[in-house]
C-alpha cells in the first residue's frame, strides 16, 4: 500500500518512513537543480526564495509547457550533482529530496543527523510524472530557464523511499539480492 504524504512533510513524518516504502505526495514541492542550489546557498544571508523549513525539493528541470498544460515532461535529474549542496540545505530545514541515483556519504550523514528522506522518482518517466502535476509557477531565478525554481502543485506524485533518515539504502541492499555470480 502506498503511503500518502501531504506537504509540508515534517521531521516526525520523515522519521516514520522506511527505505522501500512507496509513497504518493500531494501538495507543494519545489524544483531545483545544481544552478539553483548554488545560487540559493550563495545568497542565503538574504533569505531563501522558498520556505525552506520542512520543504520538499525535486531535482528536476521540466521541458517547456505546451499551451494549456501546466508543465512539460518532468522526471528527476541525477542527484549526485546536488551532493555538494544538500547537506547544507538539510541543515536549513529541507526534509524531503526527490531525485534519482546515488548520494554521497556526507549527504546520508546529514539526512540521519537532521531528519531527511531521499525519494526516488522513476528516471526518464517525464510524461507519466507530469500527469501528477496540477499547477506550476516560477518562484525564482527565471533567467535559468529549465533550471529555475518552480513551485509545483502535485497530486499523488509517486515515489519510492530509497534512502531513509536512518541511512537504510536500497541502492546498497536491493541489487545484492538479484546479483548472480
Amino acid at each position, binding site marked *: 500500500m502506498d503511503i500518502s504524504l501531504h506537504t509540508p512533510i515534517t521531521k516526525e513524518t520523515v522519521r516514520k518512513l522506511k527505505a522501500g516504502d512507496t509513497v504518493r505526495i500531494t501538495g507543494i514541492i519545489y524544483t531545483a537543480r545544481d544552478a539553483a542550489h548554488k545560487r540559493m546557498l550563495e545568497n542565503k544571508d538574504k533569505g531563501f526564495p522558498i520556505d525552506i523549513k520542512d520543504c520538499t525539493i525535486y531535482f528536476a528541470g521540466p521541458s517547456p509547457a505546451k499551451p494549456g498544460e501546466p508543465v*512539460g515532461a518532468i522526471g528527476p535529474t541525477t542527484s549526485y550533482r546536488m551532493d555538494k549542496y544538500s547537506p547544507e540545505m538539510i541543515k536549513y530545514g529541507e526534509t524531503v529530496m526527490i531525485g*534519482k541515483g546515488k548520494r554521497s556519504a556526507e549527504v546520508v550523514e546529514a539526512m540521519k543527523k537532521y531528519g531527511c528522506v531521499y525519494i526516488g522518482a522513476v528516471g526518464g*518517466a517525464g*510524461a507519466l510524472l507530469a500527469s501528477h502535476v496540477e499547477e506550476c509557477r516560477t518562484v525564482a531565478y527565471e533567467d535559468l530557464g529549465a533550471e529555475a525554481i518552480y513551485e509545483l502543485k502535485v497530486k499523488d506524485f509517486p515515489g519510492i523511499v530509497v534512502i531513509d533518515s536512518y541511512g537504510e539504502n536500497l541502492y546498497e541492499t*536491493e541489487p545484492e*539480492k*538479484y546479483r548472480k555470480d
Partner: protein
Amino acid sequence: MKIINKDTIIENVKNLCIKANCVLNSDIKRAFEEGLKNEESPTAKTILSNLIENADIAEKRNMPICQDTGMAVVFADIGQEVYIEGGSLSDAINEGIRRGYTEGFLRKSVVYDPVCDRKNTKDNTPAIIHYNITEGDSLKITVAPKGFGSENMSRIYMLKPSDGRDGVIDCVLKTIEEAGPNPCPPMIVGVGIGGNFEYSAYLAKKALLRPVGKNSEKPYLEKIEKEILERANKTGIGPQGLGGRTTVLWAACEDYPTHIAGMPIAINISCHVTRHSECIL
C-alpha cells in the same frame, strides 16, 4: 546529381527532433515487454510497467518521453552527387534543431561556455554533427538526442592489445556497474572498439543507433555483445538501480582497425530513452 534545398533540410530536421523525443521506437517498447516477462523483482516490474505507460502518455499527448530532450546528435550521410542549395548544410541542420526544439516545446539544455558562464544558448544549438560522405545522390539524416544522465556515465579505456577480449568485456561491465542507478537503467550500451581515441567514441555513439534486438553481423562482436548482455543482467542493478534482472536492454558493438600498439574501447552508456529518428532525402 540531386539538388536539395536547405529549407527541405530544415523542415525535416525539425520534424525529426520532435518525433525522436516524443515517440519511443517500437524496438525499445518490445524490450520493456520482454523484460517484464523475465523480471523477478516486484519493484522492477512496477518500474517497467511505468515506463510502458510513460511512453504511451508521451505519444498520445505529443509530449517528450523524458524532460531531458538532450543535446542533439546528428548523423548526416551525404551522397557525393548531392548539391545543397540556398546555404550550408551545417546551418540548415542547426536551424532545423532550433525550430524543432522551440516549436516542439523541447527542453533547451545546451550552454555556450562549458566552464565559466554556462549561459544557455536558448535554442539547443549547436548540434553535434557527424558527416559521412557516401556514394550516390541521397542525403540520410539521423537525429539522435542524447541525455546527459547517461552520457556522464560513459568512459574511454586505452587498453593494451594483450588485454584481449576479456579485457574488453571487463571494462564494459565495470562501466555499467559504476553507472549503477544514475543513467536511468535499464540501459542501452554502445561500445566502440579500435580506431583511435576519438574514433572509438564515435563508434560507440554510432552503435546506439542499431535497433535493440539486432546483433552485429561480425560473429566475434556478436559473441561479445551477448556476453555483455548476459553478464550485465546478472549484476542485480535492475531498473532504476533498485534491484532486478533488467539492467541492460541491449549492447551493440562496432569496430574499426587500430594501431599495432593499442586497443581503444569506448563505452557510451545510454538509457531506456535512447532516441533516434531518420529520413532519407
